[in-house]
């Protein structure tokens, strides 16, 4: 596709449920980033992949958060045992290199009840 695609766009989960959010980056982009954006705030870095290697996961808030990119293309962010504080928009971005322009998807809005 022409841009970064994320699904689902909206997800409502009951507290304690597991969720999986998918990101399909721009074809050929080796760098992939996940950010979390709380309401009225700026995006906060979660994790970074270069191809299939997860080079930085320092922003993941807890061990309930897990991300993978097994074939160096599509990535999945998984949140286990969701909590209300996990409610946010999860943004995926891709780039041709780590220091270049980030191209963002429209995000997945997670609401935990």
């Amino acid at each position: 596709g022409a841009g970064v695609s994320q699904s689902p766009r909206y997800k409502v989960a009951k507290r304690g449920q597991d969720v999986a959010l998918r990101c399909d980056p721009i074809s050929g982009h080796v760098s992939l980033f996940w950010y979390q954006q709380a309401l009225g705030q700026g995006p906060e870095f979660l994790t970074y992949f270069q191809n299939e290697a997860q080079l930085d996961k320092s922003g993941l808030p807890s061990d309930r958060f897990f991300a993978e990119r097994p074939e160096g293309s599509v990535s999945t962010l998984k949140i286990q045992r969701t909590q209300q504080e996990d409610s946010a928009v999860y943004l995926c971005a891709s780039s041709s290199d780590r220091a270049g322009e980030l191209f963002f998807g429209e995000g997945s809005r997670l609401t935990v009840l």
Partner: protein
Amino acid sequence: QQQVKQSPQSLIVQKGGISIINCAYENTAFDYFPWYQQFPGKGPALLIAIRPDVSEKKEGRFTISFNKSAKQFSLHIMDSQPGDSATYFCAANGGYSTLTFGKGTMLLVSP
């Protein structure tokens, strides 16, 4: 630790006026300073960016001013239009750090 501080939090400007948003950073390893624009329900999109080898960069109605010694940079939107109403984020990265965003400025341009 908030590495990029952005102000103001919100801004109302009349059509045709100048919008000014300011950012300050702490990490002297930062060497790339972009501004992103975000409309409701959309992801952020790159507007304009600067590297510290220049003090100013202009693209159309958008200008970044950069002050390396003060560790500050700002976005100026000339002849602001209602279509510019959006949230603007400054950001910075460099060295081995990934892009760090400010908290955002909600701009409203009144007709």
